[in-house]
């Protein structure tokens, strides 16, 4: 195990008025549990506003969690608690092991830095390869590793296409030889024809570098393709979690089922859109409904759902669901 989150919460204060008083909270994460193992891909799937991006940023400690615990186990099997203000060195250590690839390839690279500078920055921060020649060689190696040419070091990001930039992003994440990478919708801004290239690269790296991924996406098919285990999120909470195959083949939660059905099928002969019935829109995370967050739209809603929040409970060894339908 590399990292484990228990009961993680993240609330964003809504500031209003002249002195920006807190006027409420956006409850982006509500009691999320997860763990990520070595050389494993944990897929997080859900629609916009479900908290998946927030979760990714809490895990990388861009955000400090509002509640819950976040534990990190170092390669030396030491346990670090990351949920609160942490020792600078520990955090740095953690950062080195835990990297991130972002969604938008056009904003994830500083437009004023050359590719060389961008790849050099993490090395400088962590004082890896202080020898300049070694460092330059390493940077060239990284570029080749992600399928780019070493002579790109002197160029600026704007000279590259989206797919190439995403490769640079990956190279930057790889530079510190991390144990895990959080991929926040790494392909959603890319053209369809390029998306596969990036997915293939990530898969390849996983095998060759023994990488673990925390893979965030709204695309169920993509999540299924890359993940070992997945978590389905809705309104800050985990609805369903488990082994990818398990979840896909024995979809249990009503939300996951609706989600599955909503994906347009690439077969004009099997049109299915008119068969789904999901009314309404997700409620606001500022005022989440009482009980199960999905109760306002759930086709199988019961009285109990409106009062009590179901907990994530295992229905098989590798599969848990948070739904009163499965409360035995």
């Amino acid at each position, binding site marked *: 195990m590399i990292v484990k989150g228990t009961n993680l919460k993240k609330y964003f204060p809504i500031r209003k008025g002249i002195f920006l008083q807190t006027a409420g909270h956006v409850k982006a994460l509500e009691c999320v549990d997860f763990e990520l193992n070595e050389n494993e891909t944990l897929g997080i799937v859900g629609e916009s506003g479900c908290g998946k991006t927030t979760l990714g940023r809490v895990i990388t400690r861009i955000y400090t969690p509002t509640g819950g615990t976040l534990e990190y186990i170092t390669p030396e099997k030491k346990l670090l608690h990351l949920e609160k203000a942490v020792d600078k060195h520990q955090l740095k250590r953690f950062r080195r092991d835990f990297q991130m690839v972002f969604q938008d390839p056009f*904003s*994830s*690279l500083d437009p004023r830095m050359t590719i060389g500078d961008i790849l050099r920055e993490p090395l400088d921060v962590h004082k890896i390869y202080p020898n300049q020649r070694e460092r330059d060689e390493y940077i060239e190696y990284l570029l080749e590793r992600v399928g780019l040419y070493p002579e790109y070091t002197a160029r600026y990001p704007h000279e590259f296409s989206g797919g190439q930039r995403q490769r640079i992003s990956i190279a930057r994440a790889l530079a510190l030889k991390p144990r895990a990478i959080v991929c926040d919708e790494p392909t959603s801004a890319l053209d369809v024809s390029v998306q596969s290239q990036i997915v293939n690269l990530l898969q390849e790296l996983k095998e060759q570098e023994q990488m673990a991924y925390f893979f965030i996406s709204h695309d169920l098919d993509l999540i299924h393709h890359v993940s070992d285990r997945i978590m389905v999120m809705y309104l800050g909470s985990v609805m369903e979690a488990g082994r990818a195959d398990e979840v896909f083949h024995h979809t249990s939660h009503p939300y996951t089922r609706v989600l599955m059905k909503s994906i347009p099928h690439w077969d004009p002969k099997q049109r299915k859109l008119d068969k789904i019935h999901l009314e309404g829109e997700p409620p606001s995370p500022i005022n989440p409904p009482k009980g199960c967050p999905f109760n306002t739209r759930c086709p199988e809603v019961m009285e109990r759902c409106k009062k009590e929040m179901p907990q994530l409970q295992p229905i098989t060894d590798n599969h848990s669901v948070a739904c009163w339908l499965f409360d035995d």
Partner: protein
Amino acid sequence: MKGNTELRVRKAFFKHKLGIIGMIILILLYLMILFADFLAPYNYQSTKRDFTFSEPTKIHWRKDGEFIGPHVYGMTKSRDPVTFAVKYVKDEEKIYPIRIFVRGDTYKFWGLWETDIHLFGIGLQDDAVLYLFGGDRFGRDLFSRVLIGGRVSLTAGLIGTLIAVVIGAVVGAFSGYYGGWIDVVIQRLIEILRSFPRIPLWLALAMLLPPTWPSTTVYLGIVIVLSFIGWMGVARVIRGMVLSLREKEYILAAQVIGQSNFKIITKHLIPNTVTYLVVVSTLSIPGMILGESSISFLGLGIKEPMTSWGLLLKQAQSLSDIQAHPWLMIPGLFIILAVLSFNFVGDALRDALDPYRTVDKV
């Protein structure tokens, strides 16, 4: 969105004709003050009793219809017995040709080496001067004084803006990046300071400068006073930019690789606002130049023997002066020219950079 901002700005800027004209004028003006000692035919402080309020010297080219090159005639000062007005009578017998690289008052070029070579002039003569813009009440050469005065006016705006921009950028960046209480406090403070009217605040601040300071220190003081007000606008703009940049993923990326906040601000945030800073600076320099001239005009700014365009214009304060010695208004034209050029350049830059106009109203 694609494409390097600077490149795009540069390209778009050069389409802006007024901007280019402004840029050329500015370059000429700054070259002018850089070589002011050399370009000025006289030392700006040297007084000539016999040429007080002498009108701009007429340059003649022909003598008795015959071309003999540019020259001026000797002048004799006399006073009207009734009105006591000074009159100058030219003496066509005395001809002083205008030459280039002529010897005149000595000066230290850039404070480095002493020389007495001036680009053009008629040399030091007792009964003739080459005063292109006329003389002032001590018979000093207004042309030379405008050149030297430009040093104060043009650099005060520039340095003031520089200071303002540095302070504004740093404060704005910290305010925007850290957010929270730091931001609230800074924003309220800026709002408070901005609710003071600009010129009265300038005056009140200018009054703070101990009048016993030597002119060079007063100059610095004025620059600081000017920048004291300028930084707030910059800070607001930069804060706004940083607020949006902060959400950019490359800032998050820098956090993730463990970069320190300070370095994120200095290495990523501020450099990415540089183009905006240039525009903001260009747009705030005119205000500063006008501010300096206003303060000096009221006598609270630069003082003799130093001089600035505002101070020179102070001489043209009275209607009788304007009537009798209209050339004293020439420094005003230079103020207009410089400010206009900065405005053109600034506007062109803004147009080029910012189709969405976040840097309006600094």
